[in-house]
């Protein structure tokens, strides 16, 4: 399978830029495959994963990532959500990171920002809760407290699915940046 960070960065398969970190390369790709390709039965459904992922890629505004994951979404059972996802991206785009620190000396650095509300009519309650969580993790992760987890469990999310959802959003935050960073480096080499 094609290495996805190579795809996002526009690198050839044997690029010198990644040759000295073969294990990071291998396991970043295995992370991608575990999250999107060879998903274990009983864990968070693939369609939900791709819906949240296309939202996350859109919030980052990274065209290669948006195109890659839109391609996967189109072939999934969540393909019908593409308009609702595009609307959520348009409503959710902002600048980050922002958020509040635990009260104290750092409160002077608190930065307010958007608290995203997803359209539960378009997405369903379960996915809407996931989009709201994803928006928080993408733009203002330091605001994520117990209430955010309660919102997910209240929408029917199990502890294991919350772990997968959190790993997935966090992994994308890595993968999109690694691809974008290496793309800039390759262009400047």
């Amino acid at each position: 399978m094609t290495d996805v960070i190579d795809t996002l960065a526009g690198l050839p398969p044997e690029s010198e830029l990644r040759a000295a970190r073969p294990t990071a390369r291998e396991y970043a790709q295995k992370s991608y495959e575990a999250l999107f390709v060879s998903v274990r039965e009983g864990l968070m459904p693939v369609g939900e994963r791709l819906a949240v992922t296309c939202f996350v890629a859109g919030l980052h505004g990274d065209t290669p990532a948006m195109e890659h994951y839109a391609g996967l979404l189109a072939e999934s059972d969540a393909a019908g959500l593409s308009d609702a996802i595009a609307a959520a991206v348009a409503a959710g785009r902002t600048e980050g990171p922002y958020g509040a620190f635990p009260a104290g000396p750092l409160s002077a650095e608190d930065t307010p920002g958007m608290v995203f509300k997803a359209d539960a009519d378009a997405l369903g309650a379960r996915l809407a809760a996931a989009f709201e969580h994803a928006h928080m993790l993408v733009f203002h992760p330091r605001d994520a407290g117990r209430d955010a987890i309660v919102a997910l469990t209240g929408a029917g999310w199990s502890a294991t699915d919350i772990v997968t959802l959190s790993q997935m959003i966090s992994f994308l935050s890595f993968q999109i940046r690694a691809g974008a960073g290496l793309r800039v480096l390759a262009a400047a080499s």
Partner: protein
Amino acid sequence: MTETVLTHENPDEPNVFTQDMLGWEPWLPPMDEADLTERHWTALVQKGRSKMPYFMLLARDPDILEYRTRTDMDIFYNPDAGLPRADREMAAAATSRYNGCIYCASVHSRFATQHSKRKDEVQKLLDQGVSARIDPRWDAITDAAVALTSIPMTFGPDHIEALRDTGMDDQAIADAIYAISFFNWANRLMLSLGPTTPGEAN
């Protein structure tokens, strides 16, 4: 059935960036050691992690836990060429400072100090934030961390040039990109899956 969300009495939640040892507690029930299969033990990578609630919570999805850990270890521990360990740790600390992860910043500022022997300069990043000016190398790494962590991302050729001006080759710059990107993964898990607590992690 609605899942149980844990509560923690945490009146002294850390509210400053520090190089001291801190603790962490999960909002959701970690796995019990008795329920771990071979797959889970492999996913923990290091056996001692079965005593750490963070890894035992992530063990609920063992595949992504294992692959996350092995990605992390190559980015930070592979000594073959590239960026010195102290600088990789500064990249992690600067990213954590900017995203606001007090726990991650404590761990990786300690590592930066351990490998650089420059505790006061590391502390300056924690105290003053990402606008702190320390020296050309660490400033270029911090600026790269801010540019690649921000959305929209502003990382561009000027950042590459600033890193290169401090003697970094392409491998070293790729290491910085990986370290910054990886901490955008780690910070989000730590910040969202449980609170930071005082004292040593259990």
